[in-house]
């Protein structure tokens, strides 16, 4: 039974949510239609399909899609399905299809814009309604595809906000990431980790701006990094990035949590004017950016010291260490995270070395930090299957957030504003208020 809008609305209170949003397979299926079926979702980066024919497969919600570079340079996103018998046209992964897609089953072929090219032994179609120009005989493209500074997003709805409006203030995180290249361009490089979580996808989004968990959940890796630093008499980068979670509560309280419409946001550390000169890698990077942009602008770029950014439905870019943790829901209690690492074109090689090291130490399946996160998410998933209570609290600093025209900002860095903001968006998508309003506008 599909719940009514009223029933869905009742699951979200101002300061708490009903646990079924994490555990109910019916709601998960509705999310695939109403959130992932409408919102702009990150598909991949243009650098993953550099040349005509290059493709990259991924999923938008529960839909297998293929991103492909056409001969005219355009990046297209199609459902990975042959209209003949339904076979996935390309195997999961990356590759080059050449000048056209060719189905491995009966050799129907399609241009890179998805349109029908040919089918063998056409005499068999004589007198039938086979029509190569009819859309039934072409690949189906995802309704809307757009990109922002190389980041390709797609929406399965033909109507609604444009990409930039949808992203709102979080475009500044993408801008900052790109600006860290002296030519303003990034490329995905060095491979992609894929890690499985035993929990609902929303738990990870909430955790990204949950400053109260860091020193509790990550105690084992913080202790280990500190003990090791003590033993060897120094704390190099690899240990420093594990140590950070151990900051005392008053450190986290001073951060600023910025929330934007549609569930997005970022965690802003205080502008760090010293960031440009902190260590050898930063100094080399700063020099390179100074040459390109001038010292003042370079200091601004490197001083923008954001921890995680949330692009709701897509994942979380880390602008300083050049990562994008792309979050893909698998089922109501399983989530897959693809970790992309970026090279800043034109920046010194050590900047990429540092990004690669960060990926290896923090985002690899072998990370010393992540397993404790994954474990507590799974414990939420399992705990919420018990009859021991039905509501999940997000009370911290409720009612104190400063409301702005384009969202809100916390008055304390331990506020649960980000969760409240994510669920406000969730409710709008799930009750169709965003969808209905926009489809009416179009009509």
């Amino acid at each position: 039974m599909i719940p009514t809008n009223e029933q869905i609305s009742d699951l979200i209170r101002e300061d708490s949510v009903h646990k079924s949003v994490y555990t109910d397979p019916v709601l998960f299926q509705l999310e695939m239609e109403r959130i992932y079926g409408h919102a702009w979702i990150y598909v991949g980066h243009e650098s993953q399909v550099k040349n005509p024919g290059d493709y990259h497969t991924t999923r938008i919600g529960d839909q297998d899609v293929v991103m492909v570079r056409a001969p005219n340079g355009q990046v297209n996103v199609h459902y990975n399905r042959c209209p003949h018998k339904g076979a996935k046209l390309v195997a999961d992964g990356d590759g080059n299809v050449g000048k056209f897609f060719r189905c491995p089953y009966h050799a129907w072929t399609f241009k890179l814009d998805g349109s029908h090219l040919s089918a063998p032994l056409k005499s068999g179609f004589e007198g039938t309604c086979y029509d190569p120009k009819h859309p039934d005989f072409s690949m189906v493209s995802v309704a809307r595809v757009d990109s922002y500074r190389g980041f390709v997003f797609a929406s399965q709805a033909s109507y609604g906000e444009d990409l930039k409006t949808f992203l709102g203030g979080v475009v500044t995180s993408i801008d900052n990431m790109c600006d860290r290249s002296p030519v303003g361009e990034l490329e995905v490089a060095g491979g992609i980790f894929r890690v499985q979580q035993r929990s609902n996808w929303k738990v990870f989004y909430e955790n990204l701006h949950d400053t109260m968990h860091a020193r509790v959940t990550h105690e084992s890796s913080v202790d280990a990094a500190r003990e090791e630093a003590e033993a060897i008499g120094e704390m190099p980068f690899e240990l420093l990035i594990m140590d950070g979670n151990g900051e005392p509560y008053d450190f986290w309280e001073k951060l600023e949590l910025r929330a934007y419409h549609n569930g997005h946001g970022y965690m802003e550390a205080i502008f760090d004017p010293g960031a440009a000169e902190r260590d050898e890698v930063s100094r080399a990077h700063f020099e390179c950016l100074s040459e390109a942009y001038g010292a003042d602008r370079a200091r601004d770029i490197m001083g923008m010291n954001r921890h995680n950014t949330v692009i709701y439905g897509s994942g979380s870019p880390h602008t300083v260490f050049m990562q994008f943790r792309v979050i893909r829901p698998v089922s109501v209690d399983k989530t897959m995270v693809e970790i992309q690492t970026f090279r800043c074109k034109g920046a010194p090689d050590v900047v990429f070395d540092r990004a690669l090291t960060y990926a290896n130490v923090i985002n690899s399946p072998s990370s010393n930090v992540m397993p404790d996160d994954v474990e507590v998410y799974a414990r939420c998933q399992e705990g919420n299957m018990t009859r021991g209570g039905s509501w999940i609290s997000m009370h911290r600093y409720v009612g104190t957030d400063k409301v702005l025209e384009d969202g809100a900002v916390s008055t304390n860095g331990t506020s649960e504003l980000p969760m409240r903001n994510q669920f406000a968006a969730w409710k709008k998508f799930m009750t169709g208020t965003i969808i209905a309003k926009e489809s009416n506008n179009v009509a």
Partner: protein
Amino acid sequence: MLLDRSFNVKTDDLTATIVDEETLRSIERFIFKEARLLDSWKFWEWDKLFTDDGMYWVPQKHNQVNPFDHISLFWENRMLRETRIRRVENARNWSQQPQTQTAHLVGNVCIEGLDADDFLVVSASFQATEWRLDQRQLAGRYTYKLIGNKVDGWKIKLKRVDLVNCNDVFANLEVFV
């Protein structure tokens, strides 16, 4: 920085070499003991099998050439190995409750040759059953760079672990493979 490009990770283009039966036996015993230490959670003792600058490497890609321009599942020096050991031994290691249990089976030990720095390159295939909440099977090939001899014993300059599913989706890998 860990990405020290002067570290020679090459395990091909080797110089052919022949070792005597006793040397081969001592190498096999060394490798079996290494697996035994892992299975019994004697990680500190295991770590001592490495030279001071020895590296533990699990590539993320089939036939990965180096750990410098591509991610690795593990690329760990002594500092990071010790940090991992400290973490899994910490009382508040939520993700190690219950802790990971392993059983390694190692065989097909082959002497591959000598590398450019005269390290003896030895390979072995392995199966490792790992349990924590669920059971999973890890398998692949170990490639070692060893220094030493049958009398004084051996040390590991490099242990490379090529998993058959290195580029797959993974649940966390918390202990050494």
